[in-house]
């Protein structure tokens, strides 16, 4: 595509790097931003810079956070004996929207997936084991996608947690295989958290 200005071309190329955005959509967005007041455009730019520069990961649960400790971990009203282990921040958001879970979270940052080169050492699994052994957590719930990688990750952590004697369960699998957690109906998710089932380590 030919562009009338280098500035447009740069903006289009950057926007098109975002997931789900093609060159055509990127051009439409760029032209839209151009029509906005300078102030609005600056707000957009600044929010992106702040997002990248100021947001960090919680030292305890690895959820996205403004501070060293996120507002879930620092919330005194949350049940500090139950821990829900999830793949990603988007899963925390999905679960929080159900308003059914009052415990704490631990974000792994992915699932074990050798095909993508992801082994346990690249995930926040060691900090999880350390966290559980040093805290008052009595129960661990896995809320992974119902797929092979989710199962493998759950099995792996279950094995590692065995010596610690915590109760381990997995959210009930009403979720069709291949469907990501973020797409699950919130009610189903809430129910599955409440009806969580015990899983046993395979040994």
């Amino acid at each position: 595509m030919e562009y009338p200005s280098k500035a447009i071309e740069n903006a289009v190329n950057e926007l098109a790097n975002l997931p789900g955005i093609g060159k055509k959509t990127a051009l439409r967005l760029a032209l839209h931003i151009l029509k906005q007041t300078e102030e609005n455009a600056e707000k957009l730019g600044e929010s992106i810079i702040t997002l990248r520069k100021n947001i960090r990961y919680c030292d305890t649960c690895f959820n996205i956070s403004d501070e060293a400790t996120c507002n879930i971990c620092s919330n005194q009203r949350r049940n500090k004996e139950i821990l829900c282990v999830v793949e990603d921040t988007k899963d925390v958001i999905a679960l929080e929207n159900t308003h059914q879970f009052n415990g704490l979270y631990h974000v792994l940052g992915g699932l074990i997936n050798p095909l993508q080169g992801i082994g346990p050492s690249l995930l926040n699994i060691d900090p999880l084991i350390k966290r559980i052994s040093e805290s008052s957590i009595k129960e661990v719930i896995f809320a992974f996608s119902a797929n092979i990688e989710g199962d493998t990750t759950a099995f792996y952590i279950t094995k590692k947690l065995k010596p610690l004697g915590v109760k381990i369960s997995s959210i009930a699998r009403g979720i069709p295989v291949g469907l990501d957690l973020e797409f699950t109906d919130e009610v189903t998710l809430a129910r599955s958290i409440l009806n969580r089932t015990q899983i046993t380590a395979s040994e």
Partner: protein
Amino acid sequence: MYFADLNLTHFRNYYQQELHFSPQINCFVGANGSGKTNLLDALHFLALTRGFRSTQDKFAVKKGETYFFNGATLVKNEAKLKIDVNYLKGKGKKVIFNQKPLVKMSEHIGRIPLITILPNDTELINGPSAGRRKFLDMLIAQYDHSYLNHLIHYEKILAQRNALLKLMGEQRFFDKEQVEIWDTQLIPHGIAIYKGRESFLRDFMPYFEEFFKKIVSNEEKPFIEYRSQIEENTIDGWLKLMAEHQERDRVQQYTTGGTHRDDLNFHINDHSARNFGSQGQQKTFVISLKLAQYRLLEKHTNIHPILLLDDIFDKLDEHRLQSIANLLDRDIQGQTFITDTSYERLAEVFSKNISREVKFFMVKDGVAQEW
């Protein structure tokens, strides 16, 4: 269910062709390259939305042309159904069933049950084990959806396990624990696959043996042996196998034990059909396998499937030839299409005690004529 007619425009070496079929046996006779097999291919397109050669659709367009149109009338329980497969270069393929264009090609699959027997099907005997596993898996999965699911899961877990072995090999470490996590996931599916294959073969054997015995004269006894590393198809048996293979897996950086290494051994009188079978014996074996497949499809669909036989009489002795003709006459009720290079050969075998209607078409340079 049968094809009443076929209309071709610019399909392979045909410019324009209209044919009216017998609901029973139709023979296309012509020299190699005349276009007789292309007629079977056109029927395959109409029944399954694609040809039986694994080439792209664009190669089915006649040289110098930009499109092909295949049309046919299918008669099912007295009702006439129209099928069209239209392909336009650059635009793609459209399949129209009873005036309704298909949204997904898969809607059409299974509507017209059809079995083909091709000359290179002897690859099943002489080719690599992957071909035999695929043949077996497709046969089972067609009627057993849970088997298909186990197969898909097994393949996915296997791919992850192999990737892990490769990753660890490259990074020069070996974490037994991680490998075993994948084993615990692989094993339940492996057990189901073994069970599915074993029990399917037990049901399949009688059909196969029946056809084989009808084709051969002497005391040839065929046998299909299911070969697997699995000695005991239990969790313990599998755990033992995986443990025994762990060191080899580590060195070779892929999974060396499991049902993905299964094979079928085809025997005739305790001899391997692959190493010792004559061309005639091998052909008989494959034809019997395919006709047994035909019988299963017929049982499951309650329809007599359409049978396409490409050049199967070549290199068969007179006895086998006549036996197959008799079998096509008495044991197969679905509409049958046969290609051959020799009119005399077909006319001869189909002249003796044949009760089904046999219609001949002479094919020469992309023109077929009713005889």
